[in-house]
């Protein structure tokens, strides 16, 4: 029996399973058969990545008319204003700058099809970190460079950003700034 989702073949495991047209058409028909036509369904996705995927793959066209997708807030990564990201890329391109960023920012498209990842491929010093505190270590290890932490975030990341600002002061790290 053909698998609906996940192939055992590791390299294609997360690709092929999601490109199964007949399975998608089947699921679409199944959803249409399952819903109550007298009801209106409103579903909100909260992640901007989901919103991108819904539009890219035309998911709305596969759903019955009485299922409305409400596009939710998105986290600050993919709802970041493009000029802000463009400015970060310009900063990263300066030879004296090391731009430090959370990994999920690197692929977000900026204007003119640029991204931090592409800027890095073209020679900019962009470093991916798991935690803001790694900016302190990078700044301490590179006293001759300007280390800029790209302080993207919301309630959960802002305290960490505030903490590294205080630590940079305490450790007298004059070459660390936050954008």
């Amino acid at each position, binding site marked *: *029996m053909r*698998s*609906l*989702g*996940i192939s055992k073949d590791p390299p294609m495991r997360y690709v092929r*399973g999601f490109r199964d047209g007949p*399975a998608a058409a*089947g*699921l679409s*028909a*199944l959803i249409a*058969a399952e819903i109550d036509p007298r009801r209106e369904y409103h579903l909100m996705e909260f*992640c901007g990545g989901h919103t991108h995927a819904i539009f890219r793959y035309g998911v709305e066209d596969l759903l019955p008319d009485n299922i409305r997708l409400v596009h939710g807030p998105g*986290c*600050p*990564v993919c709802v970041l204003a493009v000029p802000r990201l463009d400015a970060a890329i310009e900063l990263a391109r300066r030879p004296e700058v090391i731009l430090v960023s*959370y990994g*999920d920012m690197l692929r977000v498209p900026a204007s003119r099809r640029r991204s931090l990842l592409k800027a890095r491929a073209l020679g900019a010093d962009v470093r991916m970190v*798991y*935690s*803001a*505190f*790694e900016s302190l270590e990078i700044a301490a290890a590179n006293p001759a460079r300007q280390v800029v932490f790209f302080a*993207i*975030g919301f309630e*959960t*990341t802002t*305290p*960490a950003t505030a*903490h590294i600002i205080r630590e940079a002061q305490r450790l007298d790290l004059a070459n660390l700034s936050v954008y």
Partner: protein
Amino acid sequence: MCLAIPVRVVALLGDQWAETEVGGIRNRVSTALIDQVAPGDYVIVHAGYAIARLDVQEAEKSLALFDEIARHLERPTDALRSRLP
């Protein structure tokens, strides 16, 4: 960006650092943002910082749910196959 997980504090390393463990993975996290953390406590960690202390029972319930999700993900996803038109 959105992922924060409960982890168990294994040891305090001093200077507002702690050794933590979840699912066999150990990591050093900053405890600068929370008060009074002790070995055995569960904390929520986001991007390297403990951001809240958790009730032990709540934490263990969450981790059991994560385990259940992981077990489901390992299973084949053919549950709907027999119902496809």
